[in-house]
Structure formats: C-alpha cells, structure tokens
C-alpha cells in the first residue's frame, strides 16, 4: 500500500475520475449543475464529507465488525452530512434552499460509499483522507466543467456575472435536464474513446 500522495491525487482527479470513469455519483452531478455557484458549493460539500468520513472509517477500520460495516459507514456518512447541512443552512441559506434535497442525498452518493469500501477499509487514516478529499475534488472538477457549459449557454453568465456581451440568444434547453444528460454523455464518450485509443497504441508498440 505504498501509494504516494501524488499518485493518489493524480488517480482521483484524472485517470480514475469517479464521475466520468467510474460512473459514480451521477445523480447530484446532473441535478445541481445548472449554475456554477451551486456546483461549487455542492462539490466542496461532498469533498468535505468524503474526506472526513474516509478518515473516520479508516481510523475505526480495525474495530468495526465486518458484518455490520455498511451500517456503520452509512451512519458515519449521515452524521457528517447533517453537519454539512446545518452549516449550509446557517451560512448560505439561499444556496441551501436551491440545493434542496440534494444535500441530504449526499448520504446515498455512491462515491463516498465506494471510497469507504474500496480504499478506507485497507489503508491508514491519512492516506484515506487524502484519497477521499481528492475523489471529492475530482467530482468537483467534473461538476465545474458541466456547469460552466450549462451556465454560459443557458444564462450567458459565469458565477452569476454576465458574460453575454453580444446579447446572443441563450439556450433554455441548457438549464433543463436533457442538456445535462447530453453533456455528461459526451464527456464520457470522449474520455472512453481516448482511453481506448491509448490502450490500442500501447498494444501495438
């Protein structure tokens, strides 16, 4: 288990990105991406929960009975999500209202459960926390890309600041659900094609 911090970061942000390569945590990454502000808050929130729950679960990994570990994982995650929900309600009430049920739904986000199961189970706390944090940041990165496309084309703005200097017609479809499916489908298509091309090249060489 001698994975260096740099490798953990690179794996989570690029080569094994949770959303685009593992296809995990899709629900919220589509629902909150119509504005960049919401996506950023959601991404940071998720990174916070993943990092801390991986840290906690990894620290407790030797005392959790194997049979009930799912239950313990869910409870630990839920505790951090409640913490996050209260923080958002206190300091960012309008964003908390816009995100609505999707903050609570972080509990059932497969990324957190996946990291807890696949990594925090076998690795020491600090590495698990780094892994969780950067899995969350990889998710944030994808959210920012999707929401950048959707906000620029749908509202003509970036973080709520108008960038539509030519007064072009905005595309309402971009802030509606179908566009989210098309954009994420396109991104996954591009990345998979690239990975396949690379694999074929290596096979030949």
């Amino acid at each position, binding site marked *: 288990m001698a994975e260096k911090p740099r490798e953990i970061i690179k794996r989570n942000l690029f080569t094994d990105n949770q959303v685009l390569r593992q*296809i*995990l*945590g*899709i*629900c*919220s990454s*589509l*629902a909150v991406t119509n504005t960049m502000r919401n996506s950023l808050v959601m991404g940071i929130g998720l990174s916070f929960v993943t990092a801390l729950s991986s840290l906690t679960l990894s620290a407790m990994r030797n005392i959790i009975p194997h049979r009930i570990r799912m*239950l313990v994982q*869910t*409870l630990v995650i*839920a*505790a951090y*999500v*409640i913490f996050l*929900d*209260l923080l958002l309600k206190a300091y960012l009430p309008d964003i908390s209202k816009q995100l*609505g*049920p999707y903050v*609570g*739904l972080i*509990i*059932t*986000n*497969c990324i957190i*459960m996946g990291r807890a199961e696949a990594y925090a189970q076998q690795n020491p706390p600090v590495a698990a926390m780094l892994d969780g944090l950067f899995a969350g940041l990889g998710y944030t990165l994808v959210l920012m890309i999707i929401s950048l496309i959707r906000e620029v084309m749908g509202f003509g703005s970036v973080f709520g600041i108008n960038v539509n200097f030519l007064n072009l017609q905005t595309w309402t*479809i971009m802030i*509606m*659900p*179908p*566009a*989210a*499916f*098309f954009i*994420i*489908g*396109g991104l*996954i*298509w*591009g*990345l*998979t*094609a*690239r*990975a*396949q*091309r690379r694999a074929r090249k290596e096979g030949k060489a």
Partner: protein
Amino acid sequence: MTSPISPWIIFLASIITSNMILANFLGMCSYLSVSTEYKTANGLGMAVTMVLLLTSAINWLVYTYVIIPLDLVYLQYIIFIMVIAALVQILEMGMDRFLPDLHAKLGIFLPLITVNCAILGATLFQVIRNYDFLQSVLFGLGSGLGWWLAIDMLAAMRERLAKVKLPPGVSGPAIAFIITGVVAMAFIGFSGIFVIQ
C-alpha cells in the same frame, strides 16, 4: 401548511413531468448499471416501485408522529435512512417467507435499493413540499412507476443497441446518457399539462 395540489395531479406529474430519473436525476447509479437486460431491469423497477410506495407512507408517519413532536428535525436524515434500511430488510425476510417466487425474482435487487437515492429523495421531497398523507403515498407510487417506466424504456433500447455497430467509446454508459437525454426531452413536452415544484 400542506401543499394545495390535488393528490392525483401529483401522482400523474411524478410519473411523467417530474419523473424521478428524467427530471430529478435520482436513482441514476442502478438505472445505468442494471439496464443492459430488459428482464432484470423490469424486476428492479418493480422492486423500486414497491419500496418507494412503502417508504413514502412509513416515512410520512415517522416524520409527522415521531420527528416533529420530539423536535428531531436535525436528525431526520439518519432516521429516514434507518427506516429505509430496516424496511428493505423486513420486506426481504417477509417475501422470502411468504412469497418465495417473487423473492427469487426480486431478491437480489432488494439490498441495492437501500442505497438507491430515489428512495431517500422521494422522502426528502415530500418533507420539503409539505405533502399530506395521501399526497405522499401517491407521490411515492407515482415516482416508483415513473422510475420503472424510465428503466424499462432504457433497457429495451439498450438491448436493441447491443446489435448495432457504434462509434468507438460511445457504447456503454455514454450512449445510455445520450438516449436518456433524448427521452427526457420527449418527456419535457408534457410539462405544459402539469408541473409540481
């Protein structure tokens, strides 16, 4: 304080215009991973519908008669998820005992459902929108049927697509998303009829 929308409108809207997958993006993980074969997708859809109907009823009762009187709103996520997990467990044991045929068909999907975000999502939606009991039950049932409809449609299309030659990289999840986008666009066409928010 309850939402004034007619329960039947909520029922229809949750199937079509506010479809769990196509409009609210809930339950995507299992929607994508279990939709390569029509028969299994259909089984999962049935199981999700059943669990959604039961959890939306029970979580409404728990919320109104336990969480509110005891002032435990800050613990609602933990309580809801425990209720869902317990219910799924009981349902699995009960089905194993009394409906072995159905259990053999749906059994493998039941544990998956606990972490399906459509279930927790429906509960959170009904709490946020202040639905009364009948509204909640019909919302749960409608959401389940809508989810079932969406996964059946995707699975049927993916079965056909398996026989078609696609450009490299697009087969698998990418094409599933693109199809879902097209279906979602078609469903948006209904939104002139009724919308619930």
